[in-house]
């Protein structure tokens, strides 16, 4: 029974859909055959494979949307920062402009195509066509505009907060911009992932068939 308890904990590492389908069978197998250390390791490796070899459509969709939004939003935020906000406000400190937040998202935004490429590479081994269709469905578009606006406003807000901080405290402008941008990225990805989770349609098919 000790083996089953350990196996039950290890099976929790697997994706939910997989667990719903196979957990009882795995536990029944362990109940009969026991769980050696190499079997426990095999379960851990299996969990990693399930997440990596067959990432859920929800995850891919969320990653896809987040990346597109991030890349496009970064470009617009950068443009706004350079052409709309920056020149009239801080033209007196041209030396600081290269490290202000609108530049940071544009640099990080360059990572967008890389992440997107990796996501698509993974997706082509799985449910890319279905995932793509879901990504452009109306809910996805709504998410796009909401986050597009949020990113643009966030970028401008960060820029102003940075500027105020710089004028008020004399701290380097970049000292507030970097943690702000990181928090922004994490929040964006987290909420986007939750939105993806919320909009995922339930499936009764086997995890593999669900592809």
């Amino acid at each position: 029974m000790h083996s089953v308890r350990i196996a039950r904990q290890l099976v929790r590492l697997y994706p939910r859909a997989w667990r719903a389908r196979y957990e009882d069978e795995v536990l029944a197998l362990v109940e009969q055959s026991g769980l050696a250390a190499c079997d426990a390791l095999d379960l851990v490796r299996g969990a990693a494979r399930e997440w990596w070899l067959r990432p859920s459509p929800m995850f891919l969709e969320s990653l896809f949307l987040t990346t597109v939004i991030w890349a496009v939003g970064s470009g617009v935020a950068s443009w706004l920062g350079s052409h709309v906000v920056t020149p009239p406000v801080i033209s007196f400190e041209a030396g600081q402009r290269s490290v202000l937040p609108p530049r940071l998202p544009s640099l990080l935004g360059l990572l967008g195509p890389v992440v997107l490429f990796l996501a698509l590479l993974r997706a082509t081994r799985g449910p890319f066509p279905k995932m793509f269709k879901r990504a452009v469905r109306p809910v996805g578009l709504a998410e796009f505009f909401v986050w597009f606006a949020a990113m643009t406003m966030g970028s401008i807000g960060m820029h102003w907060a940075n500027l105020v901080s710089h004028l008020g405290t004399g701290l380097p402008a970049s000292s507030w911009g970097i943690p702000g941008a990181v928090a922004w990225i994490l929040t964006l990805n987290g909420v986007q992932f939750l939105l993806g989770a919320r909009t995922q349609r339930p499936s009764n098919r086997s995890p593999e068939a669900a592809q």
Partner: protein
Amino acid sequence: MKKLHDELQDLGRFSEPALLILISLADGPKHGYAMTQDIEVVSGQKLGPGTLYGAITRLEGRGWIEPLPSEDRRRPYRLTGAGQRVLKHRLDTMKAVAKIGAQRLADA
């Protein structure tokens, strides 16, 4: 026939456990524990639970095996028609390769 061969190869790291599972199910339905026992007898390999159910997941997803109504928590699986075709093709290929290898050894 080439396509069937490629499909089994597409299972990547699961192709060998998958082949062993198909062979194990060739003489009738079995549940997970019976499969591991049979595979150990036939091939000398003991498949861990993660490897076994990773391969079962993919075989079931491709329609090469199918679950039968569960007796308790142990769900038996059986080979489908498509699974039989894939297995037969793979075994034929292996037989042809083994024959060539044996011939070359004899000629050497």
